[in-house]
């Protein structure tokens, strides 16, 4: 198997989780209610832990150690989708992004747990159980708020409309797509997207929200190839601020 293809896959998985983990951590101390503060903080810890598991696989393939990889790259070296780097906005936007992202991530993990590349299959098998909690959390809140007050519905609908082009960007195929599919490493983005649509529609149908007509939505692509919004570099600068004061410090 082409090692570059595996590395590309690992980087996009790990980078999505690291960046969304960081965004989730920005809710610590600011959640609209205590339980949500704790939820986003816990998901932050999970996501960053999950990114570490994938960066560790990259290290085993000869890449730098996880801290170096996480803290010393510039925005154009990150393979995350643009969806995860967008600022948190208000709670409705963070919730919608969490819903759109985690429903895709769990499908990736379910499919990767069957991967022919055993190290990825082992990690995915473990992590899919943990992400289940993230999905349960997102779906419960979308169902509750998405059929509650007029303001809640309007806010969620507006965030959904705003996030959808970026969410479609999660499924930007890699340059190694066909190779990974043929080798049985990964079922590929089209397969993930088809299943994702079914699952998010099943939740949205139980609310007063409407999924925009996807045929008219232009996906925000580029993230998987290092093209990012202006929001990523400031996030990276902040994330690495302490590390860069003394990269050799022992914690």
């Amino acid at each position, binding site marked *: 198997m082409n090692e570059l293809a595996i590395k590309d896959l690992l980087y996009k998985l790990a980078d999505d989780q690291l960046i969304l983990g960081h965004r989730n951590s920005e809710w610590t101390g600011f959640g609209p209610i205590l339980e949500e503060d704790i*939820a986003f903080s816990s998901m932050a*810890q999970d996501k960053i832990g*999950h990114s570490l598991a994938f960066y560790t696989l990259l290290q085993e393939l000869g890449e730098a150690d996880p801290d170096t990889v996480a803290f010393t790259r510039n925005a154009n070296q990150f393979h995350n989708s643009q969806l995860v780097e967008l600022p948190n906005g208000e709670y409705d936007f963070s919730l919608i992004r969490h819903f759109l992202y985690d429903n895709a991530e769990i499908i990736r993990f379910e499919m990767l747990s069957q991967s022919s590349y055993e190290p990825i299959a082992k990690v995915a098998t473990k992590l899919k159980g943990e992400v289940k909690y993230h999905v*349960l959390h997102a779906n419960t809140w979308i169902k509750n708020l998405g059929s509650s007050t007029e303001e809640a519905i309007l806010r969620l609908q507006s965030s959904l409309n705003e996030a959808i082009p970026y969410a479609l960007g999660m499924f930007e195929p890699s340059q190694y797509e066909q190779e990974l599919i043929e080798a049985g490493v990964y079922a590929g983005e089209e397969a993930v997207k088809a299943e994702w649509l079914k699952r998010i529609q099943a939740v949205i149908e139980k609310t007063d929200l409407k999924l925009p007509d996807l045929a008219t939505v232009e996906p925000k692509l580029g993230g998987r190839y290092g093209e990012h919004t202006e929001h990523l570099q400031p996030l990276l600068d902040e994330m690495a601020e302490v590390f860069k004061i003394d990269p050799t410090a022992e914690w």
Partner: protein
Amino acid sequence: MELTKENILTLLEEVKDPEIPVLSLVDLGVITGVDISDEDHVTVNMTPTFAGCPAMDYMKKDVERTLEKHGITNHTVIMSFDQPWDSNKLSEKGRRHLKEFGLAPPPKYDLILDLDILEHVKCPYCDSENTDLRTPFGPTLCRSMHYCNDCRQMFEQFKPL
């Protein structure tokens, strides 16, 4: 002490979860294997409960310290996902200790997680099932928070995974 798998596991009973000090790592189910080579090299395999758990590194060092305290210097402790942890791996003794500590033990389940098994967790204080899930997250990654409508107390569950 003779170097046998059973004796090593007995030693490791001393090592507790730093966040739940009544629970040994053996009862927690994170010690997945002990091998002793012909040259008396001891290999302990471990696996994390939750991948992001910050206590795992501490637990690994604690296993190493405990082996050394008992004169076993020829050792390797490996943390991996080879045999991934799930909450069914908690021993019966571990479940009892959790309840005594005030944490509802996770139910034994078919490993298909849904809201139903989280919604009416048995209260560790009064054994009522008239309880509500407040949030599937808690003060540590492995805990969820619940409210008992009978004894009117918040409680935490070591959550099923």
